[in-house]
């Protein structure tokens, strides 16, 4: 544990921004102590070998307890002397130097708070080296640089450098050169070195006056070895200001060999940028030798030499790509930057990598996509859901702008709190939303959690698991995968899992293409979803009606539905698949009729095993309880409840009609659209080369199946079939009547 013993609470919280909340976040590794009472009370836990104690040298100075505090400090020093594992750092506001002797360090207060987070991180990993507190990430280098700076400051030279033209001299907040360049404008670079801050500096200092030469310190910010001067010079070159092509002199007290591995080293390879010595004379000399100034036209070419790479860290990379894509998409679509997306756009505006990308791929107003091309053709009142762990960073606004502006389109998103959830929780939350809200189209980010970056196989990636679950729930829901990833194995895995489309979070020149692709895909998806979801719901309802049916029948039914669904999905590509889908559904009727409980075929035919519907008289003739009525004019053929003796064709139409008339107690089979369904099957579906089945016809046959399979819809009192008791006598009479064979 690290114990931070400092009574100067305001200094801690305000000056160094170590607020109560920030300390609380790290309370598993650091404990602040503000009073002597607390120090006394926790003495036992503090005086432990593996602890680190950071002690304000003047703890409770100028109070009545100063003496006790001083003795406590002495006790800590003694304890440190006896226990090598125990680390003690004594800090003060009036200390200017950093030193360490064995396990006791002495340092200025600013260093403590500057490097405290780093010390905490190291301590968590079992590293108690106090040098990280004194010198930051690279103790050896930092110490060497600090000594070099001290030395360099002693040999600056007296008179200021006389350099022709308009000059801007930038200096660090500490260890700066005063009056370095005669008549130069002077600005101070403070310790905050975020891209946002540096961009702000450039905006303030380089937008107005046009300079010939800009002098940038190689070392500024909290850590000398960060060599922020290289980064700042890169910022200047990548930021479109009137000083973008000014000569840049980076002045430092180390040679170029110390900078070779720096991320922004390439800036020194570009024209118009030079590393110069840390003295006034060196400035004068450098300007004399500067001959490779560049013009504004050459800037882009020079910037290309920088060859900046995406940040190596996965998290950053993910975030960087996302933000860059958001900026590009927002710009192409024309999203207002007055809400949450503004933060992202601001970051993209100031982030050096983005600046670099913009310098390479400039965006201009002409790349804006016309609103007419972004039109969404909705069917009904569709519901779109975005699932993206970075949804709230701007994507939700972009999609809301794309889809939400159309009346009747519901748009919502999930993802802002995914980082607090496990993969399982993410999937459950999304699934519940899709089910409860009856979502039609899901825009799904490929990577939804940090764990997805380290998944062994694509199948275990959260989005793929979720995709499978969505498709199992209702394959009619359209899922468009939306991701920065374009790896083949990812695409393959997504396709196998049932993704309906893929749109890349494009960042390059193909942003507009990707947006238009998404719009087209969305139009297709809305059309598909509206129809396929309904079909699938119908399937589900029908399946539920067959709960008591034989397993084999049910399995066949499921297979048929599955094939049918694929064909219906395929029909969006080739219409003839509608016909095949229809035939597949018709097959379900035929399969149904094969069940002896439904229709028993033989010399005597029964419906529901107990209603005799037909009895064979001889090879050519039957006695039937229903009689055929041929087509007349516009009325299709049908059967009616009337006994008939003669030629009978006991096919699907007969069987279905018998069921409808006898079991459903109908007068004719011209009910529930059956004659039409039968005719569509025979005249259209079977002949795709001639005509195509319509979606309505598909729905009609589905509705019919739902009625046919629903035992609850059958009449409580079915109609009476052929009488059983007089069977032999009747047959004899009928044979005589029709001249049949005598027995």
């Amino acid at each position, binding site marked *: 544990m690290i114990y931070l013993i400092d009574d100067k609470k305001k200094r801690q919280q305000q000056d160094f921004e170590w607020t109560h909340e920030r300390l609380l976040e790290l309370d598993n590794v650091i404990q602040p102590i503000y009073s002597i009472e607390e120090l006394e009370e926790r003495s036992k836990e503090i005086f432990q070998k593996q602890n680190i104690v950071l002690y304000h040298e003047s703890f409770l100075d100028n109070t009545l307890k100063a003496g006790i505090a001083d003795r406590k400090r002495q006790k800590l020093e003694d304890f440190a002397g006896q226990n090598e594992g125990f680390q003690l750092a004594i800090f003060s*506001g009036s200390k200017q130097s950093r030193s360490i002797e064995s396990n006791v360090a002495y340092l200025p207060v600013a260093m403590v708070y500057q490097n405290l987070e780093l010390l905490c991180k190291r301590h968590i990993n079992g590293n108690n080296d106090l040098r990280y507190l004194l010198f930051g990430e690279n103790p050896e280098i930092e110490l060497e640089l600090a000594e070099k700076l001290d030395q360099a400051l002693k040999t600056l030279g007296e008179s200021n450098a006389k350099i022709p033209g308009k000059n801007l001299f930038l200096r660090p907040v500490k260890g700066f050169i005063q009056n370095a360049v005669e008549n130069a404008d002077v600005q101070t670079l403070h310790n905050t070195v975020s891209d946002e801050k540096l961009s702000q500096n450039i905006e303030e200092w380089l937008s107005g006056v046009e300079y010939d030469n800009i002098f940038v310190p190689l070392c500024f910010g909290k850590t000398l070895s960060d060599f922020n001067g290289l980064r700042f010079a890169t910022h200047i070159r990548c930021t479109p200001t009137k000083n973008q092509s000014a000569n840049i002199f980076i002045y430092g007290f180390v040679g170029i060999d110390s900078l070779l591995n720096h991320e922004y080293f390439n800036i020194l390879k570009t024209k118009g940028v030079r590393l110069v010595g840390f003295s006034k004379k060196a400035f004068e000399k450098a300007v004399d030798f500067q001959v490779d100034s560049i013009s504004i036209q050459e800037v882009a070419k020079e910037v290309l030499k920088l060859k900046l790479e995406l940040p190596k860290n996965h998290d950053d990379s993910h975030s960087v790509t996302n933000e860059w894509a958001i900026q590009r998409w927002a710009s192409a679509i024309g999203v207002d930057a007055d809400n949450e997306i503004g933060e992202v756009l601001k970051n993209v505006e100031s982030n050096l990598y983005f600046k670099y990308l913009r310098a390479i791929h400039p965006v201009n107003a002409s790349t804006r996509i016309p609103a007419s091309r972004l039109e969404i053709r909705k069917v009904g009142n569709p519901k779109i859901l975005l699932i993206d762990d970075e949804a709230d960073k701007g994507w939700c606004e972009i999609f809301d702008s794309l889809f939400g502006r159309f009346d009747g389109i519901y748009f919502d998103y999930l993802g802002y709190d995914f980082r607090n959830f496990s993969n399982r929780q993410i999937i459950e939350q999304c699934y519940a939303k899709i089910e409860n809200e009856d979502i039609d189209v899901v825009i799904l980010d490929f990577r939804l959690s940090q764990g997805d970056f380290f998944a062994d196989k694509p199948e275990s990636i959260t989005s793929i698991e979720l995709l499978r679950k969505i498709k199992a729930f209702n394959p009619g829901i359209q899922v468009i995968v939306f991701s920065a990833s374009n790896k083949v194995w990812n695409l393959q895995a997504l396709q196998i899992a049932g993704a309906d489309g893929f749109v890349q979070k494009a960042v390059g020149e193909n942003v507009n293409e990707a947006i238009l692709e998404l719009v087209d895909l969305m139009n297709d998806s809305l059309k598909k979803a509206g129809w396929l979801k309904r079909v699938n719901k119908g399937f589900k309802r029908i399946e539920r009606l067959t709960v008591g049916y034989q397993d084999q029948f049910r399995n066949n039914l499921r297979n048929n539905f599955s094939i049918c669904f694929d064909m219906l999905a395929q029909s969006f590509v080739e219409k003839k698949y509608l016909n095949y889908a229809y035939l597949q559904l018709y097959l379900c009727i035929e399969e149904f009729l094969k069940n002896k409980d439904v229709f028993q075929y033989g010399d005597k035919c029964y419906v529901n095993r107990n209603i005799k519907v037909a009895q064979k008289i001889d090879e050519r003739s039957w006695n039937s309880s229903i009689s055929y009525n041929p087509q007349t004019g516009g009325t299709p053929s049908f059967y009616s409840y009337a006994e008939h003796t003669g030629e009978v064709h006991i096919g699907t139409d007969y069987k279905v009609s018998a069921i409808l008339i006898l079991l459903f107690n109908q007068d004719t089979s011209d009910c529930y659209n059956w004659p039409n369904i039968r005719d569509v099957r025979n005249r259209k579906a079977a002949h795709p080369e001639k005509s195509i089945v319509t979606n309505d016809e598909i729905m009609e046959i589905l509705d019919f199946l739902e009625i046919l399979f629903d035992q609850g819809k059958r009449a409580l009192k079915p109609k009476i079939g052929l009488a059983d008791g007089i069977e032999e006598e009747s047959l004899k009479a009928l044979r005589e009547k029709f001249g049949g064979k005598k027995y």
Partner: protein
Amino acid sequence: MARSKYDFIRELLSDKKIRPNQRERILKLAAKEIGNDGTLEERISVVENFLFNQRATSEDTQRKLEEPSSPGSQKLQDSSSDQSTNLPDYRDPSNVYKFLLAYNQNEILKSTCHDIDSDELDIIKGYCNTDEYNFELHFAKIMEAYESLEKRDFGLTYIKALIRGYLTGKGFKGEPLNPGWSGDRIVMNWSHPDLIKWCNDNRGFPPSPSEGLVEKNEKVGFEFSMFTSNMSGKPIQTFSELVIHFKHMFHVRRDNSLLDIISHANEKNGWADKIMFEIDHNNFPKNIELFADVDKLVQCYNGILDLIIENHGGSTEQKPNVRLSLCQSTHSVQLSIHQLDTIYGKSLTDTVERGIGRSYGNLIKKRVNGTCNLTLKADFGQGDFARVNLWDGKPSEAEKLDSFSGVEHILEFPKM
């Protein structure tokens, strides 16, 4: 005659340039004189002496006016030495320690030797009774606190002059210090017009902000034309750096260690070209704390090295071999400058009985007195090894040693 002298006293007392504490002292001395044995003229003569001297050489006479001799102090008994009569009265260096410690710990004066953070700012606003930092009020409080401290402790003319220079840019009589205060001739001070103008232009913000406050507000504080510190060789160009520099002028501690100070003095004066130093860091700890007049301390150190080189005869082929060490006891800190390869130039008897010669005399008079005590440990030749207290307010005495090699000068800085 007597009348005129009384008039003189009256005139002197009415002189506006005489400060209250000096006036008080004059009255005491006059009263004492009048009550003493001897003629009135003789008594007045003593007073007159003090007064004339006070006008002629402000530093010494002011000390005499303000500071009674320490009870134990007396001039070295060496009638044969032509220098001994010119030796000053002994000034106890522990007073410096006490005074500087009190200065450093004073709640208000602390802000003149520490940069100002948010907590300190609250304290200042508290005793200034304002919601916003106000330099004018702050400085008034500083002067009030300092004058009170100045009155409380007698003597210490040099250190008080130094602090007055730092705070006001002026001497005791209000005369501008030209070219500046301290050995660095520092022009900038708490009353400098440029500083006051800056404070007027930057109301609410202290001129000497801490690093945290600088970052938080993105304001460096008050800046002025750079000067290079004599003590460290580092450039001083902000007021925050100046207050820390000022602290370093009297507070020796780890980040302003005597080792660093002496190393810089060696580098600056090129001592290493003339002397072979031997410094064992174990015997020269950096963590020893001390309140002392660092400028004077360095002058003492340089003075001793001058003596060593002078006695060595200027041979560059064979440099004198000098071991430096530092140690502390409960009551003092001792800096040892030990020339290993020599014997003392005078016999032990001469050293003790004939007193201090011209070179030591000047060193003591100008540098050592009031800064530290000086002790000599040496091989005096002829089998005489001894320790002699050259300057500590007591008569010089020899403490025989069984053996000793070389000549060691010990600068002792008493703490109490």
